[in-house]
């Protein structure tokens, strides 16, 4: 067994509690609990009819405006911030772009990793069984729950509704990387471990599309690729700046066809090897990405996903950093910065916990760090073969 010791990020105030607190989500769920509900629909929204052309008149007035989900998310987040629920004010964290070719973004965040206790994480098993004794999202404090996200015939927002029977929940991350940092937990009470299937990924894509903002990205980290909690979840936050990976050159690796608009390309000239899936059809992306990811899970290859462009672009990064770390193949200098290269870091957004690391951060340092993430050429070729078969 291969394992590494690292300081896990605290995403909930209840994360270290042994016992189940009375006002945690699980308890509230059992006793009955009201939550705001945002309903999205897979059908064309009446709001969109208005945008198709001035000649078209919508059949009924729109129930909610475009990107209402964004407004909802931001307003709830801001409310929690004013209630002091976050461990620190993330807007007081300094950021800058590192000069060079890629435009990596470095942030000084001293508050994120205050917890000193190291935890052991197994890195050679991407699929692990759900362990109810460990922390999971039913144990979060009820105040950390923002709203539930559900599918319906009509899009709509309901301020106070009883919690659904199998809700998809949006929570705050009490140690945010950026403003609006939330966790999306599909079918929370199904207690699914961290692994991907097309439906859950499709939910994340719809979530991204509904927020309808190019600054809002959603990420996924598999076990072994720096997921902290083995309970199915995605993370998301706003950053009004391009992620370096979004600007990277790409070259197509799948064949075009008349039936499908799905483009799969390989990153060219980027420090991490990866592929990107692009399509206007969310179903198509979800099915294709999930199928590859399931294959990677079976082969024990950890990976990260970064969903951009309102759900129409998904980056997939198979990685082996944690494995190298477990085998003592990563330099101490890199380990000392305690940067865990998960989806955000690989995308080019690096959070540094020590002032000296931030002040001396350079593109060379980030490139060196990310170079340890990539699979070897033959291993990456195997992954491409999986994708293109």
């Amino acid at each position, binding site marked *: 067994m291969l394992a590494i010791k690292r300081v896990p990020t605290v995403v909930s105030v209840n994360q270290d509690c042994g016992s189940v607190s009375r006002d945690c989500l699980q308890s509230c769920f059992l006793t009955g609990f009201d939550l705001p509900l945002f309903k999205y629909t*897979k*059908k064309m929204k009446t709001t969109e009819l208005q945008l*198709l052309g001035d000649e078209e008149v919508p059949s009924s007035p729109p129930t909610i405006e475009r990107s209402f989900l964004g*407004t909802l998310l931001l307003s709830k987040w801001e409310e929690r911030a004013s209630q002091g629920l976050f461990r620190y004010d993330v807007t007081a964290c300094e950021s800058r772009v*590192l*000069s060079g070719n890629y435009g990596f973004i470095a942030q000084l965040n001293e508050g994120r990793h205050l917890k000193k206790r190291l935890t052991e994480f197994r890195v050679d098993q991407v699929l692990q069984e759900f362990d109810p004794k460990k922390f999971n999202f039913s144990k979060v404090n009820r105040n950390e729950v923002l709203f539930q996200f559900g599918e319906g015939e009509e899009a709509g927002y309901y301020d106070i509704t009883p919690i659904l029977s199998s809700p998809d929940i949006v929570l705050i991350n009490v140690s945010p990387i950026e403003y609006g940092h939330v966790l999306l937990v599909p079918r929370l009470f199904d207690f699914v471990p961290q692994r991907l299937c097309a439906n859950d990924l499709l939910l994340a894509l719809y979530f991204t599309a509904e927020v309808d903002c190019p600054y809002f990205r959603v990420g996924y980290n598999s076990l072994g690729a720096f997921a902290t909690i083995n309970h199915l979840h995605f993370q998301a936050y706003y950053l009004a700046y391009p992620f370096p990976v979004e600007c990277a*050159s790409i070259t197509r690796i799948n064949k075009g066809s008349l039936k499908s608009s799905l483009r799969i390309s390989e990153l060219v000239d980027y420090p991490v090897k990866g592929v990107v899936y692009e399509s206007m*059809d969310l179903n198509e992306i979800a099915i294709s990405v999930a199928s590859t990811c399931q294959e990677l899970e079976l082969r024990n290859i950890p990976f990260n996903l970064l969903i951009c462009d309102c759900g129409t672009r998904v980056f997939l990064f198979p990685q082996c950093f944690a494995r190298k770390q477990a085998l003592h193949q990563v330099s101490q200098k890199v380990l000392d910065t305690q940067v865990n290269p998960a989806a955000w870091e690989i995308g080019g957004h690096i959070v540094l916990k020590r002032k000296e690391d931030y002040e001396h951060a350079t593109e060379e340092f980030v490139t060196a760090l990310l170079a340890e993430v990539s699979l070897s050429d033959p291993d990456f070729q195997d992954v491409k073969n999986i994708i293109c078969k």
Partner: protein
Amino acid sequence: MALQNGSLLSSDRKCVRSPRMKNHKLIVSQSLIRSYRASIQDELQKHAYNFVLCDPGLPDHPIVYASDGFLEMTGYSRDEVLGRNCRFLQGRDTDKRAIVEIREAIREERDCQIKILNYTKAGKPFWNLFHLAPVFSQQDGRVVHFVGVQLPISSKVAARKDGHLTGLELSFDELEFEEHFDNPSCKNYHLSEEDKQRAFAAVKAVLQELANSSCKGVSSMRSKSFSEGVIPPGFVATSLLLALTRIPHSFVLTDPHLPDMPIVHASLEFLELTGYTREEVIGRNCRFLQGPDTDLAPIEELRSSISEGQTCTIRILNYRKNKEPFWNSLHISPVRNSSGKVAYYAGIQVAVSHSSEEDEGRARMQQLGTLGAIKVAVRSIQTGPVLRKSKTIS
């Protein structure tokens, strides 16, 4: 974006104007009048180039001027393009990388020359040598407009009905365009120096015209002192503007570091709510919204909150330009930029009447949601000097 059975419909052949631009004719003409003399449209008309002017300070960075050549090249009418973002020129096979390049140049407020696949209204693809250049205000250093010059590289599109090619249209051998190809950067094309020079010349001519016709002074380059780090008060970078103009609510940003805390940015919705134009509000303290029956108590509360760097929500009687009073639920909050320090104070307005509890709840959500969006925008790293080496596709 529209969702239909899991597919996102792109706004391709149908020109989509932001719903916030319903008074687009007025807004668009104001954009030009603000910076140039009234004769500007006639002056620009004299040039036979294909070009547009876009205003990054308006929602979705819309076109505010389009030359006849541009309209002919693309097949749209003037009314169809004014007030709309240029993305209607993009289509299924437009290289995303090229779009990203243009976006970066806009954010970094610099020139960009790039080959990009565009589409006419009829859906016909053509290769376009696109040259983008910012127009800077000499007063406050902001980018007032972006000039976009198009040089089509396909004789099919360029040829006019009488068979003569005008302006910058070049005659190339007819290209065979494949429906599906693997790499749309189209290695078949080789841009000559001549092409690039023609594009440069066009941009230069348009910029010269704008400079000649400007009221307060514009130029293709920032003032020397700016480049040396002397930033004029009230300067707002394009990248911040692009993020702020996405926010579809009434709000202002004021600068607490400048004397009398003037407004440095006002949203379109604020201008519509209050009836003022941008020129009438930028640089002034918000107190011009107060009037004869405005209570002094909430203003005191506001003042003390600001001096303590706190947020606060007050209900205050304000007046529109036409003297019409309205109740304003005003929420203010300090907003930090990428340095982590307070850069602005945001003021978010919701016009309220005798509102029900549900309306209050909704108004509150809009306020906080708007504040969140402002925090995201202001927190973004503002690019001044170019930090990334630009990769112009040749």
